[in-house]
């Protein structure tokens, strides 16, 4: 009894057949901070880009409130710094979320860094913007007090992150 050889077509079909699926591996559990920072980062990026577009519009239409800076530039400078820092910190939130799984941070460190980064994203640009909305001569408004507090949170976050990455 001769064994019949498979035809070329049969061989081709055998080769293209999808191998039977292996049993599905369990996906790593998503860290709660990851989703939170993705959401927070994208939303804050949206807000600060909107602010940038608004400042651009002020520039394009030569809006006096923004353009007629008086004898000092504090007013415009503060708003521009608020926009720039807000945008950068938003991107930092997204980068933090994207890299969180690979950083192997200790749970407590991760939580602290997350909170500090969130606080910094609120306070640093918030300080600049509030300091620019109202100015006192060449001095920014009282809102600028938030800036050093926010900067402190940011420093803590970066320090803990740098130390905690494994």
């Amino acid at each position: 009894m001769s064994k019949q050889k498979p035809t070329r077509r049969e061989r081709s079909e055998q080769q293209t057949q999808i191998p039977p699926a292996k049993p599905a591996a369990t996906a790593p559990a998503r860290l709660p901070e990851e989703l939170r920072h993705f959401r927070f980062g994208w939303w804050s990026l949206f807000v600060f880009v909107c602010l940038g577009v608004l400042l651009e519009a002020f520039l394009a239409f030569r809006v006096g409130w923004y353009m007629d800076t008086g004898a000092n530039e504090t007013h415009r400078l503060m708003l521009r710094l608020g926009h720039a820092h807000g945008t950068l910190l938003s991107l930092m939130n997204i980068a933090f979320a994207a890299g969180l799984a690979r950083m192997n941070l200790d749970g407590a460190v991760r939580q602290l860094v997350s909170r500090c980064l969130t606080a910094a994203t609120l306070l640093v640009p918030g300080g600049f913007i509030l300091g620019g909305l109202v100015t006192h001569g060449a001095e920014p408004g009282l809102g600028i007090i938030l800036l050093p507090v926010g900067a402190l949170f940011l420093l803590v976050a970066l320090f803990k992150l740098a130390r905690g990455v494994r």
Partner: protein
Amino acid sequence: MSGVTAAIDSLGLEIIIPALLLLVAVLPFLLNANRNQALGLLAAPFLLALGLGYLKYQADHTAAASEGELLRATPAQVRLSPDADPGNAYTSSQTCRACHPGEYDSWHKSYHRTMTQLAKPDAVLAKWHGTELPLGQARLHLEKKGDEYWVTTVGADGIKQAVQRLTMTTGSHHLQVYWVGDKAGNMQHPFPYGWLIADQKWAPVEDTFLRSPHGAPVDAKWNKVCIECHSVAGKAAVSMTRQGQTARTEVAELGISCEACHGPAREHIAHFQNPFNRYTGRDEAKAAHGIKNPDTGKMDHRKSAQVCGQCHSYQFTPNPPKRLAQGPSFLPGGDLNAAANAVAVQPSKFTGAPPKSQAEARQFAASHGHPHPGGEWLTDRFWPDGMVRVTGREYNGLLDSPCFQRGKMSCLSCHSMHDYHDRNDQLAPRMETNAACTQCHEDIRENLTAHTKHAANSAGSSCYNCHMPHTTYGLLSAIRSHQIDSPSVAAQLKTGRVNACNLCHINQSLSWTNEHLAEWYKHKPAELNTESKRISSVLEMLLKGDAGQRAIAAWHMGWEPARQASGGDWQAGWLLRTLNDPYSAVRYIAHKALQADPRLAKAEFDYAAPLAKRTTQIQKTRTDWEKQLPEQTGVAQQIELLIDGQGKPIEAEARRLEAKRNNRPMTLQE
């Protein structure tokens, strides 16, 4: 947006919003904190924020109250708000800055901007705090409290008579004078002393002008005198009340800013706020929408010069009360004489005596467009041929210049408001050289020495020195005339204005000049009297001239090109004598000229001090000078300089000429 800003500012939201934001930021930290940690987290940043906020708020409110008080006492920026005056088309330099930062910057560095300023630390140049100045029997005690400048008048009995806050300053280049605001309105009264910036010294305001020593004290109000040229679109609005004169003065902006030369800009700004209009308005004709550009490439040279002439000229005002109430109506691009409720005078057309009858007066007004301003008015401000003799009135000189009349010369042919290399004169690049003239007179550029008869790089080959000599007076100095003219002995004999040759060759007589002008330029020699033939022309003017002539003569004795051309070792004796001149301005100039002599560079002299102190200082300087004189060696005296062989003035000659001095009381006030 400004509403949002105001709300934040006024409702205390400036503190509440940051506090709320801080709360939101720390909330996540509270989730797994114990009670004490939570309290600490909440309290620490809040306490810090509130503490700092309170301190800053207090400081801001103090500063704001001080600033508000200052603004209320001055005419500063009253008209800037279109809400207060819908007809106001002025906007202020700040709005120009947004689109024209380069032009704003060049203007901001200029002395035009700082002509009038609020009395704040960045404006006040004088050494103020702790200074004591005499005022008759009383004394003025000056104090700086924070950013405020105060003056207390203390009587001879030690009792405080008045405490006033300094409100405004005028000038920032050579001289700064100060104003004290009126509580009833915003009338600005003069502070009795001015600050000489180069000397870093105080001087009574009377002594900062060339004024008769017997004249009345200066009591000019800023609102009535200075407002027209030292602010933009000023309306004096001075009225009489039971308390005296009060003012509700309004200006578009203090100092001379963008809209003084370019006109009111509200329409221009509204138009170009639209980006589409900016794109389509790139070509120059459209770019000037709503404003004027005095550049001679874009405006007739006569109208361009009038933009500067609105301030840099003597104008005759037919109806002063109307002008005081409404302000000058001239706008850049318009006709100065037709619009300004005043006429820029050209006395070369009417140098004769004032009309003697009503009919003559009517005839004069009909032919000149204004009444005769009066003999004294003319003689104090103009040389007898109509050339202006006070600085700051360059447009009057330009009107009589052939380059303006027959050519296309305007102020901006040499000066530039935005492209200057030195803010002293705001000359355009290379315009400090002969290029200023040879840009039109190309033939002279090619044959310079053939025309000047002097070495190419010498002071004698400078167009300015011969055609714009220092024959106007102002700011305790001699300043270049802005009437383009040529040296003429005949003109000097007619007017008393020393010709350019003798202002450099200060050791030469008019007969020497007569010979050279006849030989070089075929002038017809003028008839000279014995003194003019024999004595240095400048020296003759120093001894016989009026106060203005003496000031100019003394100034040239210290002018370096003149000292190089004429020797620098013979002037000191004459200048020492001039330190006794009755006019303080002449004494000041003589002292500066004396210091040009290296032997007396450190000579001290307080030109405005009482006579006794001045006499002592002069005596000391004279002694120092005489110690350095050579021994009598039999050197022949120099007769044209009236000095003996040792270099001392021949007193008999000096007294003889001084007896012929023109002692007419005069005022040359820029």
